[in-house]
C-alpha cells in the first residue's frame, strides 16, 4: 500500500526528469551547431571592434539609412529621466545638452531632421533585451565593451570620459593624489557602470564597494554617511558635486590610461542592425568636419576640469 503510493508519486517525477534530461541533451546539440553557424557572422560584422568600419561598409551603410523601425522616421531613445549635462531639463527634443545635440546632429547627417526625428525613453535593460526594439538608436552614456558587443551593436565612440571621485568635504578621500591614498576609502557607484568596474579593478579598495541603482542612491548614501566617496564619469561627477550634493567636491579625475575599461560612449543599436554602419558614417563625418568637437565644447567645456589622481 505505502510503496505503491510512493511509486505513484515518483513516476511522473521520473517522466519529467527523463524529458528534461533529453531536452538538455538536444539543447546542447542545438547550441553547439548554432554557435558554429553564428561564429562567422559575428567576426564578419566586426562588432567587438567598433572602430573597424571599412570604407565600403560606410558607403553601403549610408544608403541603408532608410531601414528604421518606422518608415521615414528615426526613433532615438535616451534614459528616463535623462540627466544633466547630457540632456538639459530632461527634454531631448530641444537639442539642449551634449547627447541631445549630438543625436540631432547625427540624425541630420543620416538624413532625418525636424519631424522625422522621434524621441523615446528606455531603461538599460530594454536596450539589451531580445526581440524587436522600440528605437533605432539609443544613447545614455553607454560604454562600449567587447562583452556587451556580443549582444548589441555599438556605433563608433562619440565621447571619451575619465572616471572621477566625488567625496564630502572632510571625508577620508579628500586630498588623495594617488590611488594608494584611496585604498581604505569606502566607495559607492551606480550598478552597471564602468565606474564600478573601475573601483573593483583599478582602485581595489580594502572595503567592498556599495552599489546603487542610480546616482541618486549614491548621493543618498554619501549624505547618510554610508560611503566616503562615489565614482562617476567626470562630467557627471562635476555636476553631482557642483549642483546635487551640498558640501561635496570632486577629489580628482583619473587619467585615461589609468586602466580598467576606457570609458568610450557609443550609440546602442539592435544586434546586426542595418543602421549601425550608417550611424558610424555620420559620426565619422562629424568628427572629421570638427562638428563633434564643437558640440563637446559647447555643452561639456565646463565639465572637464579637475585635479588628476595618479595610479601609482
Amino acid at each position: 500500500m505505502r510503496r505503491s503510493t510512493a511509486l505513484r508519486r515518483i513516476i511522473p517525477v521520473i517522466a519529467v526528469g527523463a524529458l528534461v534530461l533529453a531536452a538538455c541533451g538536444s539543447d546542447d546539440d542545438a547550441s553547439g551547431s548554432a554557435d558554429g553557424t553564428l561564429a562567422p557572422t559575428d567576426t564578419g560584422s566586426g562588432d567587438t571592434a567598433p572602430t573597424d568600419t571599412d570604407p565600403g561598409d560606410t558607403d553601403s551603410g549610408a544608403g541603408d539609412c532608410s531601414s528604421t523601425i518606422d518608415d521615414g522616421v528615426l526613433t532615438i531613445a535616451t534614459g528616463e529621466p535623462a540627466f544633466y549635462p547630457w540632456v538639459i531639463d530632461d527634454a531631448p527634443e530641444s537639442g539642449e545638452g551634449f547627447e541631445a545635440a549630438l543625436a540631432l546632429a547625427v540624425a541630420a547627417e543620416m538624413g532625418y531632421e525636424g519631424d522625422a526625428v522621434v524621441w523615446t525613453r528606455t531603461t538599460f535593460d530594454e536596450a539589451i533585451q531580445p526581440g524587436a526594439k522600440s528605437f533605432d538608436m539609443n544613447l545614455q552614456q553607454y560604454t562600449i565593451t567587447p562583452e556587451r558587443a556580443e549582444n548589441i551593436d555599438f556605433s563608433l565612440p562619440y565621447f571619451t570620459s575619465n572616471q572621477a571621485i566625488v567625496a564630502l568635504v572632510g571625508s577620508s578621500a579628500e586630498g588623495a593624489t594617488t590611488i594608494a591614498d584611496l585604498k581604505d576609502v569606502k566607495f559607492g557607484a551606480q550598478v552597471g557602470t564602468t565606474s564600478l568596474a573601475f573601483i573593483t579593478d583599478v582602485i581595489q579598495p580594502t572595503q567592498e564597494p556599495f552599489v546603487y541603482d542610480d546616482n541618486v542612491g549614491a548621493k543618498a548614501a554619501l549624505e547618510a554617511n554610508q560611503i566616503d566617496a562615489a565614482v562617476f564619469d567626470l562630467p557627471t561627477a562635476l555636476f553631482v558635486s557642483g549642483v546635487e550634493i551640498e558640501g561635496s567636491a570632486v577629489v580628482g579625475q583619473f587619467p585615461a590610461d589609468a586602466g580598467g575599461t576606457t570609458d568610450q560612449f557609443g550609440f546602442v543599436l539592435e544586434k546586426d542592425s542595418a543602421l549601425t554602419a550608417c550611424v558610424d558614417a555620420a559620426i565619422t563625418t562629424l568628427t572629421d568636419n570638427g562638428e563633434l568637437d564643437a558640440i563637446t565644447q559647447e555643452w561639456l567645456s565646463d565639465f572637464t576640469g579637475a585635479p588628476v589622481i595618479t595610479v601609482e
Partner: protein
Amino acid sequence: MSDRPTRRERYERARRRRSVAIATVSTIVVVGASIVLIPLTPGWDRVRQAFFDGDVFLDTFPGLLGAFWLDVKILLWSTPFILAVSLLIALARNTRSPALFPLRAFAVIYTDVLRGIPVILLVFLIGFGVPALGLSRTWANPLIWGSVTLVLSYSAYTAEIIRAGIEAVHESQRAGARSLGMTSSQTMRTIVLPQAFRKIVPPLMNTFVSLQKDVALVSLIGPVEILRQAGIDKATYANFTPYVAASLIFLALTIPCTRLADWALARQRARTGATTIA
C-alpha cells in the same frame, strides 16, 4: 486474514494504476510540447542567446553563489527578531484589560502601517533616512537598517498570522484553563499559544519563503548580494543569463522550504482527521 487482495483492494489498485498512467501521459505531452514548440518560435535563438548563454553562466555562477551567502546571513539573523517582535505585537493586540487600550492601539497601528507600505519603499526610507540623522559609520551600515526594515515589515505580517492562530483556539480552552485556576498569562503561555502555533506552521513557512526573496531588497541601499551581483554581471555582459542563474540559486533554497511547508500542512491535515477529496 488471507493474503489474497479483496475486491475493494483490487479495484483501488486498478484506479491507482489508471491515475499514474494518465499523469504520466499528460506530463509527457505537456513537457514534450513545450520542448518541441518553444524553439520553433521566431525569437527563440535571440532569447537563448540572451538568457541561456552557457559561457556567461559559468563565468558568473561562482560570484553569484558567493553573493548569495549575504542573503542567507541576512535571512538568518532577521528571522529570530521577526518571530520575537511579531509575537509581542500579537500578544499586545490580544490583551483584554481596558487599561491596556493604548498598547492595543499601538499594535493595530503598527500592523496597519508597516504592512501597508511596500517593503521596497520602507527599505529606502529607513535605509537612507535613519542613518542621515547623523549616525556614526558603524551604525549607519545599510546592512543594519536593511535588516531592521525587513524585521519591521515582516513582523507586521507575522503578527497577524499569530493573532489569527490565537483567535482560532476555541474560547472554551481559555475558559477551561481559567476555571482550573490558571492566570491569564499562564493560560496564554501553556494552553493557547501551543495550540495556536500548531495551527499556523504552514502560513509561517509561507511567509518565510516570501522573506527569502525579499532579502534581496536590501541591495537597493548598497550591499552587493545576489540580485545586485546579477545586475552587475548583466550590465557587464549585456546578457540576462546571470538573472537565470540567480533564479536557480534562489530556487535551491525556496523549493525545499515550500516542500517542507507542504509536508507540514499535510501532516496537520492528517492529524486533524480531515479527508482528502480528489
